[in-house]
């Protein structure tokens, strides 16, 4: 199988990798570069758990050929702040009980982050539309929608919102 060289930025770091022609972005990032926040729920483009942001757009890594990402900027949940200073979306997901088993969470966060970057004041319909490709089997979606709306209300950048402003689930 022919190999090609791929140049891209992953979470702020420039990388060059030799990839097989048919290799998916999921396989490259998750299996070779240990970006394990990208989950594989189906590997057939139906669950959204592998959602990453490529040049600002949410993409399903399992059905994206790595070779199409030459020169691209790729963000995964690893790019979000760590426990020390959470991103408003992360804080809102915690406050609103939007992460239950957590398996869909990183994909949801990426879909939501791409939405807020493009549309800082989304309506509920915008949020529903943005996460419509992401399956969650635990939460019933409402807490996730509330969390994204709350994060949008908290304003841009990592200012964060004072936690627990609105209990999602009691």
């Amino acid at each position, binding site marked *: 199988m022919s190999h090609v060289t791929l140049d891209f930025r992953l979470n702020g770091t420039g990388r060059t990798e030799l990839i097989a022609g048919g290799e998916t972005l999921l396989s490259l990032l998750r299996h070779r570069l240990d970006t394990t926040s990208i989950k594989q729920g189906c590997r057939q483009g139906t669950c959204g758990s592998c959602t990453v942001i490529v040049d600002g757009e949410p993409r399903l890594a399992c059905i994206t050929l790595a070779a199409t990402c030459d020169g691209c900027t790729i963000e995964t949940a690893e790019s979000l702040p760590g426990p020390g200073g959470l991103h408003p979306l992360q804080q809102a997901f915690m406050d609103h009980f939007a992460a239950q*088993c957590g398996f869909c969470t990183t994909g949801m966060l990426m879909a939501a982050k791409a939405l807020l970057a493009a549309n800082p004041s989304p309506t509920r319909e915008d949020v529903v539309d943005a996460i419509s490709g992401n399956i969650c089997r635990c939460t019933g979606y409402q807490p996730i929608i509330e969390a994204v709306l709350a994060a949008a209300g908290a304003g841009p950048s990592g200012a964060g919102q004072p936690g627990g402003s609105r209990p999602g689930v009691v």
Partner: protein
Amino acid sequence: MEFRKDLFANERDDDLNEVGRPTQRQDAQGHVTGRSRFFDDYALPGMLHMKFARSPHHHARVRSLDTREAAQMPGVVRILTSEDVPKKVHTLLILLDLGPDDEPPLAFDKVRYRGEPVAAVIAESESAAAAAAAKVRVDYEPLPAVFDVEEALAPGAPLVNEYHGRNWYDYNGYDFRKIRFGDVERGFREADHVVEERYQMSPIEHAPTETGGCIAAPDTAGRYVCYTNTQALFFSLETAARILDLPSNRLHFVGGTVGGGFGGKVDSVHEPLALLGAMLTQRPVRSAYSRAEEMQVSSPRGAERFYVKDGVMDDGRIVARYARIYFDAGAYSRLSPYGAVKAAAHMPGPYYIPNVWVDARCVYTNRTPSSAMRGFGVTGADFALEVQMDKLARLVGMDPMEFRIFNAYRDGDMKAHRRVTKNAALIECVQAAARIADWPLSERFQAMSSTRDGGGERGVIPPAPAPGPGPGKGASGRRVPPAGAEAAATTARPPAPADAPTVASPARSPLAGRGRMSSLLGTRRR
């Protein structure tokens, strides 16, 4: 949210510091930062992948199994067949002393459901393992299959599982789990109406976002480690130890992070074989369902069929219930014998019924083995019972909420399982639900309480009828219609709550005028 601690005043005196307030999951921070480690995030150097050759037949004899061609495929390291498995036949509930062993981790003489694994191929990559699994040659002799619980019980049905010797689970010498309380035949004779309905559930797949799987690897000092998403870590550990015939202290299970379970990750199908692969190759071995496998071969909730026959009085009292339950275990027991018990135990519902007869059968068919799934046994029973309650309410012309309040257990009532009701709160729950839903309840039902008018005559175990075949079993063992269901006779009536109507009967629904409804059984689609 409304807390009515007064209803539980005699039960708990803690002040509920946590319940009712938002709280943070301890794993939430790991989830939102992508740092929670699921089993598949433990990919180890040199890890091998396991994929299964699966039966294309629902039921077939295995004449021969040939792995030679598969073994020649690129990347293949080892192929497991049942010859490699120390304990060739196992059952999950044996850990609770419920046998018999009835399921091979890898099939040998027969396959009993479509998708049953017959060989496990271990290779350098998942795609190499899958490609080689497709080259395992099995000579099958297809056998007649049965997919319906009642057909499986009929004479002449194909025998699904030889380890049981018949198509149902034996509960200590009985072909069903039974509940016997009072005299249902007398209850039906006295009832103003008798209604029998059939309720059929479907298998339900849990469809967790993370499919089931594990990674097993050699550890030091002859031990093996297993990173798994089982929902039952020690149960899976003991199951693996038994199948591998190893002392359990040779196994170290790491788990707790489960990407959705809902009951679907307790069957311990991956761990024993991945561990066996790690033992035989001395390398890490990963086994995980693809999404398609998760949907096709992981165990769903069993499809239950319920026949519920109730006797009800014009004033709304349910005086007798006769329920037959057929719990579809699929080809193997897994946890279904327990699910059928739960269905039986749940059958009277949260209602006081003085005469109850339940037969719950756990039946084997050539469907995917069913197992735990979110209240299995109970949710299906609730569906049947609550739809039945609506029908009964309509029949006697009562409001469905009021009908439930009227028949609810009250403190002191004897349940069909011979436990006295304590801290009942159904009446208050229905009252609260009606208030929130703006559902008008008449004053009489608003005034009812779980703490009043229970017990007394309702608190004793009713006398059993003279020994006889009962409503469901003639001498042949086949179901016969209850004797005398159509006859009218009066003996002592079951005691009514003190606030039962004494003057006028409730307004009648159009159906009520039909008097006794004969059994609907047989006129409905099977």
